[in-house]
């Protein structure tokens, strides 16, 4: 089965308090040198059929209308190849 991955991230200008909280916790745990953390969402969509242009267009539409809120979030769509 083909897998398409949609990554959703808050737009750079939108404050990400969750990412900031993670970033602040890292040095306390001994993970130094990390300047910034942004937290996002990853959706893995398993397709019934082939990943053709039509399927990708539908997925982009789903991402735009539903998976992401484009007022505050950006998204990317990519195909995950077989065999990792």
């Amino acid at each position, binding site marked *: 089965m083909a897998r398409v991955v949609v990554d959703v991230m808050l737009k750079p200008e939108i404050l990400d*308090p969750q990412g900031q909280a993670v970033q602040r916790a890292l040095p306390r745990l001994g993970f130094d040198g990390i300047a910034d953390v942004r937290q996002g969402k990853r959706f893995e969509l398993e397709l019934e059929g082939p990943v053709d242009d039509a399927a990708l267009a539908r997925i982009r539409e789903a991402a735009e209308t539903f998976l992401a809120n484009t007022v505050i979030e950006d998204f990317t769509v990519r195909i995950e190849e077989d065999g990792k």
Partner: protein
Amino acid sequence: MTTRVGVVTFPGSLDDRDAQRAVRLAGAEPVALWHRDKDLHQIDAVVLPGGFSYGDYLRCGAISRFSPVMETIIEQAKLGMPVLGICNGFQVLCESHLLPGALTRNDSLHFICRDQKLRIENAETAWTRDYSAGQEIVVPLKNGEGRFVADQHVLDELEAEGRVVARYVDLNPNGSYRDIAGITNAAGNVVGLMPHPEHAVEPLTGPTTEGLGFFTSVLKQLVNA
């Protein structure tokens, strides 16, 4: 004829009963609406209540926005039916694009629950005409994702058109841009509000009864229409 004000129940709504009660105390007839039922049952106005519809999965209000009842509500809102979204209801209205902007995680990351002072900035919407512009009221506020954000252009437009309905006073509890607690659409029939006027309608249970004005306002609007 009694004015009928619908209150939608989504799976995970919490404040639907309180909203119904506020509608009744204001003198209208509350009509329970179910999220899967497209039919609005001859209502004159509708309240989208607070809570955690669909467990806030994906984003607050993102799944509710596509429920069957919302299809009809979005249609009717565009035709002028008064719609008030409180808290989660406000999030649903933003997700529906009936209102601009979005509501994001409080800047403190804490869930905030407090009695909150607000200033009514626009007393001409369907839901605020029983107030006067500049009037300060205290109603409960309780949210984890109540931080109103929008781009500068949208914020400037809201300000210029007088579409900021209410602002936080003394303290901005969640980091909302420009202390915005509530906004309206250009026509003034759709209002989104993060704090909870429906919890401030009776002395026994509320900090004040100053929230009742939202519900009496819509009644007046409909009777005069």
